[in-house]
């Protein structure tokens, strides 16, 4: 009989009997996905709060994407829990001495803020669509359902006067402003979950919450840039094929022009947070090596030996240094941005991997190791949920949700007719 974790853990040298890699790929995915949430929201707030006009289009986009990512933050946890149906207990009997209990409150608050902000941003569109559908006398099935959805979403208010819209704008600004510290808290607490575990020599550091927040923002910005480019490319493609014009944009050349300005602007913020994130991680490493406490021996053999490839080549080299060079070189192109952004996302993923898996790579005896073998082909429910396809499911779901949300909250102004 296999115990949980035995299927993907290989023990080496002196390891105590109950030690396995219990927190596997889904616990890597969870901070990765919530990091994207926090980062996307911060990006959107840069426009709403600080009024950086060039970011207007990407701001709307990243707000809806942030909302699409929210339910996906729950998904890896549900797949990981040994008793997923009891997950609601975190809301019923939260034990606030535990960082995970904060999840219930912080997540709900954040979801409420993002949902409210989207409501305010799109309220005019919701009201107009609901009224149009109400006045249409012969509705087909889809239109009937849409009418119900849009009418409910108006929350009973059909006032779209100048005064009301002005109030909407103020509300958005306030929510975006409150939302930034909450987004930081959402991801900071995820860092606290690891950083406060004194039993784990690699995780235990006060820097962990800050490192997590910084790399979360990096990943959020990177993902929004990537999806923005992909969507704009699709629209350009459609524009060329159908030869139709979209609202204020007249041609593919003009679309391309606007894109590169937004990209260059956003890339600057990406670089800033990238530098901050890597500095903190290097600081942590240098401190550990300098102070060389009891656990340094085993950590050193994990960081510089066993996980050298994962940490220095994949995360620091390919995931940080390479995109940094790509973005710093003059004459930034869309193509180079795509490569840089993909590498950044890879680097952030590897950071989560190196923290979660790396922290479980050595035994509590400080004289043994555990090797993680990610299950690829599932042969039972457990190796599916905590394997490659489970992770893939988590990664793909926000895009599916985003496609659905786009129908109610269209991210491109031209589609709002």
């Amino acid at each position: 009989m296999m115990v949980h974790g035995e299927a993907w853990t290989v023990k080496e040298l002196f390891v105590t009997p109950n030690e396995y890699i219990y927190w596997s790929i889904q616990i890597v995915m969870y901070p990765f996905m919530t990091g994207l949430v926090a980062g996307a929201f911060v990006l959107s707030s840069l426009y709403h709060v600080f009024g950086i006009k060039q970011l207007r289009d990407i701001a709307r986009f990243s707000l809806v994407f942030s909302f699409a990512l929210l339910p996906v933050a729950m998904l890896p946890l549900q797949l990981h829990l040994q008793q997923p149906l009891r997950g609601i207990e975190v809301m019923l009997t939260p034990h606030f001495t535990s960082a995970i209990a904060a999840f219930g409150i912080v997540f709900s608050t954040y979801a409420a803020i993002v949902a409210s902000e989207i409501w305010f941003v799109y309220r005019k569109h919701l009201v107009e669509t609901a009224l149009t559908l109400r006045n249409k006398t012969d509705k087909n099935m889809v239109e009937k359902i849409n009418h119900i959805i849009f009418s409910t979403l108006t929350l009973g208010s059909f006032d779209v006067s100048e005064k009301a819209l002005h109030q909407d704008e103020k509300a958005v600004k306030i929510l975006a402003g409150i939302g930034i510290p909450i987004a930081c808290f959402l991801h900071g607490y995820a860092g606290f979950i690891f950083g406060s575990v004194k039993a784990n020599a690699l995780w235990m550091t006060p820097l962990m919450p800050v490192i997590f927040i910084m790399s979360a923002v990096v990943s959020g910005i990177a993902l929004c840039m990537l999806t923005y480019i992909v969507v704009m490319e699709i629209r350009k493609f459609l524009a060329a094929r159908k030869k139709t014009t979209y609202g204020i944009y007249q041609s593919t050349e003009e679309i391309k022009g606007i894109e590169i300005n937004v990209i260059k602007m956003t890339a600057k913020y990406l670089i800033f947070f990238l530098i901050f994130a890597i500095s903190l991680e290097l600081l942590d490493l240098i401190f550990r090596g300098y102070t060389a406490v009891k656990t340094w021996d085993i950590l050193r053999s994990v960081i510089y030996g066993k996980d050298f490839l994962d940490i220095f080549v994949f995360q620091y080299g390919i995931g940080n240094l390479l995109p940094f060079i790509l973005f710093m070189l003059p004459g930034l192109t869309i193509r180079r941005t795509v490569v840089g952004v993909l590498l950044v996302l890879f680097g952030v993923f590897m950071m989560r991997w190196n923290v979660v898996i790396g922290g479980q790579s050595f035994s509590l005896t400080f004289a043994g190791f555990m090797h993680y073998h990610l299950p690829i082909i599932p042969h039972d429910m457990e190796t599916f949920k905590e394997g490659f396809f489970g992770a893939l499911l988590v990664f793909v779901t926000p895009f599916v949700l985003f496609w659905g949300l786009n129908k109610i909250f269209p991210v491109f102004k031209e589609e709002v007719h």
Partner: protein
Amino acid sequence: MKSHVWRPLFVALGIVILILIARQILVPKDFGIHERGYMYGFYRKSNEEDWKNFAVKYRSAEYCKDCHSDKHSMIMQTPHAVIQCENCHGPALEHPSNPPKLAIDRSRAECLRCHFPLPYPTSGRANIRGIDPEKHNPDIECTMCHNPHKPKIGGTK
């Protein structure tokens, strides 16, 4: 409160109230902060009783000796007196009603637990005599020649 801007807040408060109602229904009434305080004593009190009612399996030699006095007094004269009956015979449970007969572990592995010699300085293990299992009658059970209740060949201590 005329303004529409408060509506999302009402929705949020509505959801909070739903959760509080769910809490009243789903959380057991004896769930709360007990003697050890919020950090260490936040739990469902009746779980303590649940654990106290867990079935006892091992009864100890005291339970066996009245019916099995012959075997018991025999083993008490030997160095094996320190070994509990149930170590080799398994937990007594509700014996003799359930199970009516207990198994006997006659495997070489059971004896080798102590009698594989490990000459470790500072450990009590070094004081136990043993055999090399690969050389000392490797194909047969130890009990063919040694009676666990009277282990020395020849019978007496």
